[in-house]
């Protein structure tokens, strides 16, 4: 099974994988070889790839996954390798978001979005 991870800035990964786990918009999904064709909406969270000898972990932020012909394509706005996550920065963002006092629905949505992203990032960094 081939796994491709693409962001607008770069193609971060294009290699063989035995198993891929992704955080979807509303839960987690595991994809093994020979999975049925699928298009899914991603949430913020962890992406795990098991390769022959090692496991790699990424933090991904929204986007899509497409499974077709044994190729898993992950399109995301942002992807960071788990070891490279800046926990201090994420914690700062989270504290900042929680300190906001939003007034309009859009501001509420933005605060919740930022907080959810920061929390997901911290979760991936700690795991």
């Amino acid at each position, binding site marked *: 099974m081939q796994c491709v991870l693409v962001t607008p800035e*770069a193609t971060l990964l294009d290699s063989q994988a035995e198993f891929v786990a992704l955080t979807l*918009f509303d839960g987690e999904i595991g994809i093994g070889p020979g999975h049925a064709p699928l298009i899914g909406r991603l949430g913020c969270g962890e992406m795990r790839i098991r390769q022959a000898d090692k496991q790699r972990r990424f933090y991904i932020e929204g986007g899509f996954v497409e499974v077709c012909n044994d190729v898993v394509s992950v399109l995301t706005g942002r992807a960071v390798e788990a070891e490279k996550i800046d926990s201090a920065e994420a914690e700062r963002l989270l504290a900042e978001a929680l300190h906001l006092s939003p007034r309009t629905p859009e501001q509420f949505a933005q605060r919740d979005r930022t907080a959810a992203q920061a929390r997901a990032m911290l979760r991936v960094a700690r795991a």
Partner: protein
Amino acid sequence: MAKARALDKRRRSVKSIRKITRTMELISRAQFKRAMDRASAATAYTRRITDLVAHLAAAGMQVKHPLLTPHAENKSMVLLVLTANRGLCGGYNSGVLRASQAAMTERAEQWGEVRLEVSGKRGAANFKFRKIPTAETYTHFNEKVRFDQVNLLATRYLDEYAAGSLDRLDVAYMKFESLSRQYPVVETLLPMGRLGDHSAAGLGGPQYDFLPSAESILDEVVPAAFKAQLFKCFLDAAVSEQIARMVAMKAATENADAMISLLSMSYNRARQGQITGELLEIIGGAEAVQ
């Protein structure tokens, strides 16, 4: 000796200018390579997004989204002009500015007021000089423009468009077609009109499962496509800027070379003339003594 020395001084200054233009050419060549790689990476992303939309359409999904349809009323529009932060890149900035100026006068008839947003110090300075008010100026988009920077901007436009305070977004930038061809364009990014090519519809590809649903995916794919498009504009602008600078600096270096050889010739001639003059003086003096 006066004339020869002045010529030599000029030649030296031209030589040092040549060194600078040559270095700038090499720098922009390296930066062009990097910008080009980033642009092709972004193209890979956009292509996959387009494929995704085609698959949605093939699954019998009606591709409909608020971002794809124009608003009923035409009240406010934004023209985003992408220029460089630095000059010395030939006709790059002036080309974009001329195109944006033409677009502005044309759109002003239909839209009344056009809100102007400018990226790049060169464009900002130009509009300030012409006393055209700009709503926003950005100077932090350089040749290494990052997606999260553009993402912030794109999210703001999307929010405004959804809230109804923005009815149209045009972007004026230098489009990159090939190494030898870049041209200024004014493109309409919002409303998006059509998304990609739907020719795959009805061909019956694989039967996809949609998680959580096709509608939900469409809700996300359209803004993602918009962001990718805006990012592509910035990347194109960065690539074109480096090419323009490369070409301009190459021409400047060649001009400097021509000037150096011209000055060298005049200098040698002046020096020779001086020596001849001195010799004549000595001979004349010696003959007068005899």
